[in-house]
């Protein structure tokens, strides 16, 4: 029996996916459960899995192509299959149900009604010149939209992709070839900017689209307010150093791990801040799952440290590093970046003194962590140098009131300034 391969919803919010790479090619034998292709969702790169045994046929989505969820991207033909399911648009619910259409003729490969099917979209079509330029510049041709015959990538496509513009490239403009070396645009720094270009228009990647969509639903509609306090980190630093000495080769505890742990424990004591705003109700969480904002190429994602209040610092440290690494290589699974009840965003390593973070809805609060800097401070009436850190909490006023937030922050501050309190 022939089975349609659909673009599946590989993340809860995914509406379309970009085929990054086909692992199987037209005509390859595939087994149920095998990875057919890698798909970039709005969050990560996921595997599209074969849901039948057979031979992969009629691959219609080329590498680099973005396809809406539910669309047929290929067909798996079973042994002796002559019929081919209609390339219908399926409801975007995984796992997809194969629809079998009437036999269309008796040809070996069967015929597909309606829409002409590309011969083999797993092949990258590019002119020899485009291939050579791409190779030298380190450009992934799969990620360039081709405008030549049959979607072939041409030199001009590379130029426009590099310049981030469409059309208007004069044939004589050869010396101005600006090619991006990364498939996803890295944040622009002045030295990385296109030579001579006044600006670069960069199409939104899936993750950027999602960030854009989600953040305007935050700062716009959510009545934010901000609370800032400065924390003396001297003792936390001492405690961390001692712990790391103790751990030796068994791992490292970072300031961030300490902050995550303290935040989780403080939230246990202030459930009012560990909540989701659900439009017609507020969901106060009994579990504490801390979202940890991680900068990735072209965006950020917040992997979740579940039950952070019940994990040891060493556990938190190990998990945080694993998740951050997975986030960076875009291999986070949906359950690893959803369901946080409160988030922490740390820009301390960028020497940011203080900043405000945007709430990740439906959560009600987020902490923005600044850098730890030695500052003059009065301790026991003595002027001395102490390592200090500014933290700013963004609160959704629909859930958290000023005093509620301040009380939470006070507890957190106490915990950080006297880590022993965490043991209470």
């Amino acid at each position, binding site marked *: 029996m022939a089975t349609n391969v659909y673009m599946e919803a590989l993340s809860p919010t995914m509406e379309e996916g970009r085929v990054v790479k086909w692992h199987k090619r037209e005509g390859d034998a595939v087994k149920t459960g095998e990875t057919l292709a890698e798909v970039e969702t709005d969050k990560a790169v996921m595997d599209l899995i074969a849901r039948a045994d057979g031979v992969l046929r009629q691959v219609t989505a080329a590498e680099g192509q973005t396809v809406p969820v539910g669309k047929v991207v290929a067909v798996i033909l079973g042994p002796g299959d002559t019929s081919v399911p209609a390339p219908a648009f399926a409801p975007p619910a995984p796992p997809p149900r194969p629809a079998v259409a009437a036999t269309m003729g008796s040809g070996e490969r069967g015929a597909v009604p309606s829409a002409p099917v590309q011969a083999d979209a797993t092949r990258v079509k590019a*002119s*020899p010149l485009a291939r050579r330029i791409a190779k*030298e510049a380190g450009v992934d041709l799969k990620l360039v939209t081709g405008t030549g015959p049959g979607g072939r990538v*041409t030199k001009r496509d590379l130029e426009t992709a590099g310049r981030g513009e469409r059309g208007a490239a004069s044939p004589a403009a050869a010396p101005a070839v600006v090619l991006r070396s990364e498939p996803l645009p890295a944040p622009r720094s002045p030295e990385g900017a296109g030579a001579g270009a006044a600006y670069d228009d960069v199409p939104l990647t899936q993750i950027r689209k999602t960030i854009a969509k989600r953040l305007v639903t935050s700062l716009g509609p959510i009545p934010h307010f901000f609370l800032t306090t400065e924390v003396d980190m001297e003792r936390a630093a001492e405690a961390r150093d001692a712990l790391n000495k103790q751990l030796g080769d068994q791992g490292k505890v970072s300031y961030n791990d300490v902050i995550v742990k303290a935040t989780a424990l403080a939230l246990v004591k202030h459930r009012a801040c560990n909540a989701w705003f659900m439009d017609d109700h507020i969901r106060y969480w009994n579990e504490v799952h801390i979202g940890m904002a991680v900068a990735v190429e072209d965006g950020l994602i917040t992997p979740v440290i579940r039950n952070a209040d019940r994990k040891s610092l060493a556990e938190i440290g190990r998990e945080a590093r694993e998740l951050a690494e997975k986030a960076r290589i875009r291999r986070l699974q949906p359950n690893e970046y959803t369901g946080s009840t409160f988030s922490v965003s740390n820009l301390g390593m960028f020497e940011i003194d203080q900043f405000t973070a945007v709430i990740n809805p439906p959560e009600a609060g987020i902490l923005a962590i600044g850098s730890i800097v030695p500052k003059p401070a009065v301790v026991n009436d003595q002027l001395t140098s102490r390592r200090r850190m500014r933290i700013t909490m963004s609160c959704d006023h629909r859930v958290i009131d000023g005093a509620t937030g301040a009380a939470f922050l006070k507890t957190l501050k106490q915990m950080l300034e006297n880590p022993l309190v965490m043991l209470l």
Partner: protein
Amino acid sequence: MIILGGGPAGYVAAIRSAQLGMSTALVEKDKLGGVCVNIGCIPTKALLHSAYLATVIRDSKEFGVEAGTVKTDYGIAMQRSRKVSDQNSKGVEFLMKKNKVTVVKGTGILQPGRKVKVGSDVYEAKKAVLIATGSRVKGLPQIGLEINKTTVISSDEALFLEKAPASLAIIGAGAVGMEFANIFHAFGTKVTLIEALPRILPLEDAEASEALSRSYKKRGIEVIPGARVKKGAPAKDKVTLEVEAGGATQKLEVAAVLMAAGRAVNTENIGLAECGVQVTERGFIKVDQNLQTTAPGYYAIGDVAGPPMLAHKGMREGVYVTELLAGKKPHAIKYDNVPSVTYSHPEVASIGATEDQCKERKLDYVTGRFPFSANGRARGTGETEGFVKILRDKRYGEILGAHIVGAQASELIHELVVARENEYTVEEVELAIHAHPTMSEAVAQAALDSLGRVVDM
């Protein structure tokens, strides 16, 4: 679809339009095929072949073939060229019938509302009106050289002469001037070729100009580049010209003057302004990238739509517009990949940038060259004049331009046109196995030379 003008742009558009299922009418006031078929490309190629035969037979002794005294008769050659033109024009007529295109004979005038008036009849297009009225030769009335059709002629008259003139000054050494110089010289006319720009074939690569200049001078055609015709005085059976070149003025007395400098587009009295179709400062019809004029529903193709004024460019535009109007997504026209050919002996054919243009654009390029004198096939036929020159991008090997001077240049260039259209680099050209011995090998060798690996030299 209504198409105004049955030249190469118009008739090809008509056929494609009919193929795509559109009801199509073609309005033509004269013979189908336009200038190209009737008084341009086609008859001149017939005459050039006559000229070629005359030259070959004259020189055939060393090949072991003696034909005695060679006599030429321009009148007979002309009659033959007329037959060729008529056959081609009838061929176009046949194609119109075959494709069920309605041919309306008469002068068409555009009217608002996608209408075209021919005589007392008015035709209305549902889809679009294509303006393909072409161009014509023009004289230089400002210096006293208005075309009088006897002593001051254009190609229109030259193609119908019963006798080759004793002497002829050709003003303009572009493709047309070069070809007629070649024709008449072979028929015994004393030819003087006058070009205002510093070199003949000014749009071609300087090396091609140089090669042709040498070739023409060697066979006795006088070539005066960088020349200014100060005055022209036509008399009953002669013309006196005052030509200034290199600081000196000389007087020329010739039996006739052939004006081969420039063409004027046919945009007058066809109702452009009434329909809101604007023209550019240079007189071409203003079009957008879809070749639509400033009046929606009116499109311009071919010479009226702007340079290069070449039949094959117009043909492609005709196909492009009709496909666009039929809702297809036609392959974009690459105006920098339109080959240009001069059918002189030797022929000159080119694609892309000249070496001077590469320099102007500050391109980092490498030149590959191969002379036909080192090509076995060319030696065999005795056609060792000329070369293949390829300009490639230094870094990626892109073929920036290619220039061929030689006996088969017009045919040889297309390997490089295909290469450029598909973005093959010099390596793909070289890697394709070329049959031995052929003139085409020179193309592969020039590609190799640009890579520093030439074999046969």
